[in-house]
């Protein structure tokens, strides 16, 4: 062994890692920011950083599969004459026809209906496929008002005023020209093939006082029949929830930064907003401070993947959760069966996020007729229904183990945190301690 001039192994920068270098090269070559779909991909404090304590001597468990554990939820009973009555507290989030294929929207409707829950429209209006197959359909009222019309408004079971979404709080939407087909263009009153831009704020109101009047208008138009949701991106959940309640919302939806989008700038997705975990307790606190917890329902979305996530969100005070990305995966998004085609697009199954390009091998985020035909809406709907049922069973299993005969009886005291960050955000003790960072006494 020689000790003269011993070489070091090549060392790459942690700051300028391979992905960062590739992004600099891409930007320098194209002159445009990176656009992609989905939510934040960075490691964030999340539901995985929480654990349930389960029952022991001090808590009495329920018998699995024998003793009832309720899952039903009523959304919108504050003012609406016809609140939504769902069998499970897991709804399907708003995703537009245009960003998704007609078959995908139909499949979402089929799956949600079979599981006894709701699905939601998106930017671009209500498609016949989703209304036809959705037993309970929430109609999004977005800044762009693409496809918005009173006829569809009256067909809906609830209205969701979208102020923002977790992937891009404060940002508007986009749908690139590849997906603006004749049908999509017609529904949105746009020329075919252009890059559609969506406004980031509503065209006819500004601020919470105006929103209260807008809600009044929508209630008057719908004769006070339909629940009105207000959806906000996870940015300032305490104040946003309080203001939504003050404005008259029946339901508030808080979407954390893991929540997906059809397409927006990567820099926006990764650098604006707060993790879902950090949003829940401030939102619940706002409801509690106003005496409206369980009167105005809270739906939490952004990175919900399984029944444990559902149970944790509900234990922290949510009334229901909403899923988007996970629902698409259940339909078949990013399926390794299409690996060769993902490779041809320069990516791999599990990482494909160029949904805006309309080349989705799974036939979900596309308007290409040949690709769309790959998705069987009946089969895909069944897969989603299966997945929703599994999530529900998982959440029930955990709730019973905590001695709860309804998912809504889960509470923060059933949880502990694995990290200081998660303990602070979820306001539950660090595992093995009684320490809740930020709370009095520490």
């Amino acid at each position, binding site marked *: 062994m020689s000790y003269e001039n011993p070489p070091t192994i090549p060392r790459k920068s942690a700051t300028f890692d391979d992905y960062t270098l590739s992004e600099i090269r891409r930007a320098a070559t*194209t*002159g*445009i920011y990176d656009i992609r779909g989905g939510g934040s991909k960075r490691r964030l404090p999340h539901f995985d950083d929480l654990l349930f304590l389960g029952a022991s001597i001090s808590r009495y468990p329920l018998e699995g599969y024998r003793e009832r554990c309720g899952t039903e939820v009523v959304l919108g009973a504050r003012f609406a004459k016809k609140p939504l009555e769902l069998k499970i507290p897991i709804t399907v989030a708003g995703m537009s026809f245009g960003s998704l294929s007609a078959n995908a929207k139909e499949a979402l409707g089929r799956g949600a209906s079979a599981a006894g829950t709701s699905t939601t429209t998106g930017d671009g209006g209500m498609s016949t496929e989703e209304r036809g197959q959705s037993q309970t359909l929430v109609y999004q009222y977005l800044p*762009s*008002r693409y496809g*918005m*019309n*009173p006829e569809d*408004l009256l067909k809906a079971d609830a209205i969701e005023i979208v102020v923002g979404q977790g992937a891009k709080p404060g940002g508007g939407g986009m749908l690139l*020209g590849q997906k603006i087909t004749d049908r999509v263009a017609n529904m949105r*009153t*746009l*020329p075919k*093939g*252009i*890059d559609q*831009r969506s*406004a980031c704020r509503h*065209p*006819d*109101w500004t601020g919470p006082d*105006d929103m209260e*009047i*807008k809600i*009044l*208008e929508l209630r*008057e*138009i*719908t*004769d*006070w029949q339909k629940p009105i949701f207000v959806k906000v991106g996870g940015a300032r959940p305490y104040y946003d929830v309080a203001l939504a309640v003050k404005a008259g919302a029946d339901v508030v939806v808080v979407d954390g930064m893991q929540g997906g989008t059809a397409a927006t700038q990567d820099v926006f997705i990764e650098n604006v907003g707060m993790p879902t975990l950090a949003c829940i307790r401030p939102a619940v606190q706002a409801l509690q401070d106003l005496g409206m917890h369980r009167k105005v329902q809270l739906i939490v979305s952004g990175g919900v993947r399984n029944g444990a996530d559902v149970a944790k969100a509900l234990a922290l005070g949510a009334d229901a959760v909403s899923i988007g990305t996970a629902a698409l995966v259940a339909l078949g998004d990013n399926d390794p069966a299409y690996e060769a085609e993902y490779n041809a697009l320069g990516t791999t199954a599990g990482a494909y996020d160029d949904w805006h390009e309309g080349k989705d091998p799974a036939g979900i985020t596309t308007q290409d007729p040949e690709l769309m035909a790959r998705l069987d809406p009946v089969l895909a709907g069944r897969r989603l229904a299966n997945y929703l049922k599994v999530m529900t069973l998982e959440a029930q299993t955990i709730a019973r183990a905590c001695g709860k005969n309804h998912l809504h009886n889960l509470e923060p005291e059933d949880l502990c945190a694995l990290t200081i960050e998660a303990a602070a955000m979820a306001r539950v003790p660090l595992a093995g301690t009684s320490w809740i960072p930020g709370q009095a006494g520490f």
Partner: protein
Amino acid sequence: MPVIDLAQTGLRELNAALHSQGSGTNETLWEVLNPRGSHAVAVGVNAPIAVEIKGSVGYYCAGMNREASVTVYGSAGPGVAENMMSGEVRVKGDASQYAGATGKGGLLIIEGNASSRCGISMKGIDIVVRGSIGHMSAFMAQAGHLVVCGDAGDALGDSIYEAKLFVRGAVKSLGADCIEKEMRGEHLHALQALLNRAGIVDVKASDFKRYGSARKLYNFSVDHADAYG
């Protein structure tokens, strides 16, 4: 003729009564007294009836109107005739912000002036303003016609799509991707027809200039990046 006095009757009763009118109703003329700036007056009407509102209204009067003819004998607050689908809405006085926002059809006539963002995101509605309009009007306007007999404020037609804008007076500034365009015969014909429908007989179509989209922002190009900033 049904007369509803909002000093005596609630807004809910008014709108419920209007919503109960079908296409074959015999109650074709309604009078609304004492609106006193109420919001959401005569919203969501879906019948070929006439509604005469004797006074000024607040936000969103005649919002999402279908088929009805609504006349405001006063001024209108923000968002008058927002998302109108068809029919006619006439404001005898002035209109506040967002007049005709996102409207998809029908005719909105403002006999006075309109404030900022008139015709924002319009999607097929026709708007005729006898006076002037404020800044950022016709922002992201997609389809329909905006006729302004007076002047237009800053940033007219910013990020406009395929709506057609006609202004008789001065335009303080044009927004991104909005340019003056040639006024051809078909445009003069359409403009004159709108003036006629609005009952405006003392101005000539030939006095107007036409504005519309340069279509340079329809597909992103780094060479136009400054226009986004």
